[in-house]
């Protein structure tokens, strides 16, 4: 690739073509970007702002992708893949609702009914998937000290943009542990620290969380790295497995009759009406009722729906098996995943090799 660019620029100088114009966004609006990768503390704010930044850059990725920018990379592609992920489900619901008018008024309701089922199914799928992820991430963080969502700012060098070879870096939001093959170990060291303990502080903390007796070793980093690698793989695998069941759970729950009948039915219209008609003092009181309404219109239907999914249709063996399989599989992959991950990343029984010992 590099040779192509070079050839182009050599050629440029010879034929005296007007220097490449890189568009206004490249010259005038260039903001200085950090040239070094930087880990961010895994706080809620940092994670959210990191996600928001990625979303903000998405149109840019699409724009450059559509033009075939040689600097478009796999990371950008992966961000773009989220577009169909979030459009496809609602798209299907839209197709059902578009067919709504195919029926008379009563059947219209049926189409709406099915549309509601699919819409709830989609939403619940997204919810169940992220729930599954949280259910793996949180225990891993709590018990092993590894926050799998630790963000870092990746400063990526792009190919040369000018004849002088100026290649502006671009910024991507990554996660330190997103890759098992190339986890960013370097970012976890405290580079400015003086003592080995301080440099290794993060690794020591993780080793401690993994129940290793950290005082026996002075290279906790090398001890925990392979364990973290295995942890990344396991957690991703269990998340994927759980999300497979989450598909079943989401659409299965959403399409239970009780869910379509009761979930949020008339909740907002009633609420708005009631609120408008009430004097302020009572309004405050009725806010207390919100909890009751949520219980009635959200939690109870979900609960009933779970029971219905579990029981399945008496007449259909398949539904009984599939419903139970979805629930057992979902919970099983979360619980089993946690047990398996925490068990295999427990270093309390491993005899840590002390550095001197290892050298000898």
């Amino acid at each position: 690739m590099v040779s192509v660019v070079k050839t182009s620029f050599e050629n440029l100088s010879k034929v005296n073509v007007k220097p490449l114009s890189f568009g206004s966004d490249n010259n005038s609006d260039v903001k200085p970007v950090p040239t070094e990768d930087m880990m961010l503390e895994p706080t809620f704010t940092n994670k959210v702002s990191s996600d928001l930044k990625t979303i903000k850059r998405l149109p840019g990725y699409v724009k450059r992708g559509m033009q075939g920018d040689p600097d478009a990379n796999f990371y950008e592609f992966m961000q773009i893949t989220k577009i169909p992920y979030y459009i496809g489900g609602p798209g299907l619901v839209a197709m059902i609702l578009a067919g709504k008018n195919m029926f008379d008024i009563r059947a219209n309701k049926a189409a709406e009914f099915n549309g509601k089922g699919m819409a709830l199914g989609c939403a619940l799928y997204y919810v169940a998937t992220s729930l599954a992820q949280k259910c793996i991430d949180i225990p891993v963080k709590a018990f092993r000290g590894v926050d799998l969502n630790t963000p870092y700012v990746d400063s990526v060098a792009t190919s040369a943009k000018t004849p002088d070879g100026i290649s502006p870096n671009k910024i991507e939001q990554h996660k330190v542990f997103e890759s098992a093959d190339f986890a960013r170990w370097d970012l976890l060291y405290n580079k400015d620290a003086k003592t080995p303990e301080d440099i290794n502080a993060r690794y020591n903390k993780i080793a401690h969380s993994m129940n290793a007796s950290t005082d026996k070793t002075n290279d906790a980093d090398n001890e925990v790295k392979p364990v973290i690698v295995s942890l990344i793989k396991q957690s991703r695998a269990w998340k994927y497995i759980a999300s497979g069941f989450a598909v079943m759970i989401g659409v299965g729950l959403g399409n239970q009759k009780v869910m379509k009948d009761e979930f949020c039915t008339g909740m907002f219209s009633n609420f708005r009406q009631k609120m408008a008609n009430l004097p302020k003092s009572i309004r405050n009181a009725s806010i207390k009722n919100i909890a009751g309404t949520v219980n009635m219109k959200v939690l109870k239907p979900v609960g009933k729906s779970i029971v219905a999914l579990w029981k399945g249709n008496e007449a259909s063996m398949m539904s009984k098996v599939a419903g139970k399989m979805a629930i057992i599989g979902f919970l099983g992959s979360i619980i089993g995943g946690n047990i398996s991950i925490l068990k295999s990343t427990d270093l309390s029984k491993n005899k840590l090799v002390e550095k001197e010992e290892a050298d000898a």
Partner: protein
Amino acid sequence: MKITSSYSENKNIKAFGSNQTVAPETPRGYLVHENFVQGVKSTVGGYVKNAKYAVDAVNGKGNDYSVGKINDLTLRVGGVGIAAILSASAKTPIAKFMEFAGFASFFGAMSLWPKFFIAAPLKAKTGFDVNQEYVDSYGRRKRFFEDSQYLPWDLWDKKEIGKIGDKLGIPKNIENRDDHTKAKMKQIATQSTTLWMMTAGFATPLMASLMGNYISKYSEEVLKDARVKANLKKAGLEDFTKASDSVMKKIFINPLSSVVSLFTKEVDAKSPAEELKALDKAYDAVFGKACDPVFEYNQGYLLYNMSDDMMKTQYDDVKGLIVEKDLNGNVVKKIKTKNIDGVSIIGNKWKEIPNKLADILGVTPKKYKQLMKNSLTVKNGTNPDEAELLADMLIKEFGGSENKDKVQKALQKMEKVLMPSVDELESAQHVFEKKINEVKGKVDANSDLSKYIVTRHSERLADKVINTKSSWYAPVRILDIIVKHSADDINDVEKAKSFKAELRQFIYGVTPHQIHNNFDDVIKGNYSDDYRYTLGINKSFAPLCEKTKEMLGKESKLVKNVDGNTNFLWNKFYEIAGEKGKHFESICDWLGKTPQAFISDATKQTGIYHGWLKVAGLSFAALTGITLVAISQFGKSNKYNQEVYKYTNESTRS
């Protein structure tokens, strides 16, 4: 599979600064070239591999690639699970099948869209496949252009790159031509994957619903055939099929051909109208009672009655016809009753069903008979007020809250008993229909009248099956409604009004919205048994519906202004329908809706269905159009991809 690695020849390479000949590991990567069968094979193999990857990964083994692959597997397994869950609530086997078909069309659309609407046109334009896959030295299969920062170009044949360069219009006399070609390929690949992701979210649901629409249209018959075969086997009816050849011949071919030949002789000189009348008479004489809708509790069983009525020869005027004749009409021998015993056994088996249902429900067969007989009498339309009485009676019997759980459980058990029996019944119908068609083939040559008689027979056979089903399902449907309503609903005057109206409609066997929905299908010619059953419209309506469809097709202007032309439509319909129109009118009357309204609704629905198809089709076409336009622009120079070449020979610059 063809291996096109340019590396494969480099067996021995000298190590740097060493005299030793070191043999580095030979890269075993290659581009994948597969035909369809190989593709399917490796897809299946891929899932097996993914399952292994999953096992590895939960043990902390593997790498980013193998862990990522698990997602493909789990999503699809989840998809099958969804179909299984959704199909459970579907009532008919076709609907059950459609849940899986829906799943298949969704995932099908997901992979077909990028293949046929992006990669294929691009390949035609550029000569290379943007979805080209390769297998790396570790056996990992990936899209070649997946990571545009890592493209293992060594796997490509140089000649191939040259050819692609020609097709892409890369000048021939430039330095590093292959590099320019590769850069252009990379640009196009990046553009195509972006386009794929931008369009997939819209294309997949659109394509899936269009595909689903057509699958449901065409799969019904195919599926039915397969199901019938399986059911016959499962129900132990295989012998019946075998025996049917001789048994059926006796039951159908000969009496029928006898009738045909007899009446063609007799009515030759008379007017066609009289001919038909005579034929109807003869037909009724032979099949009459057996084929007419039977509303008595233990008589709704096709084979039982068919054989019984015929063989008991209760009709004197038929007696002489029950003889075996060859196709030329010569009497071979008389048929004896015992020849059809085998058939009767099956009839008796079905006869048991109401008894079983009564048993499940915990009422005596007598009581059950009484309830159901009443309901079916009402269904017959003789005395609508009885529906009211019956509704009360049923509520009293089963509506109490203390009975609810019992009835609920009974319903599920009843469903279990009915499902296989309906399958058997339908399978038998299938066998009979096949026979009738055979007969039709054989007697077609005789006259139009024979065609008429066979068609009528086939219609009546269908009616009979429908009525049998309806007599079985009536209690299930009615109880279903009762159970769904609480005691409060039943006691609340206002609620009870609508509840009873609903019940009444179900007792009648049809609800207005079912007529709305299904009449549309009847008009479109998709009159499956279920539709006809719910409609109370039988197969004899088929030609009527065909004609109505034709009429509506011709009157496309009317479809746009249905409300303004309701009367016109109804008159047209009535013109075609004749006496059947009256029957239809009486159904409408009882259900409290004018036939005009039914017709206009049906017409509207036809219009709206076509409208939906049009919108979905047009949206898809528009999306395809946009995609193709975008593709046509791919590979053009832009600010990121400048076409600046260094020519080897200045004079040939153009």
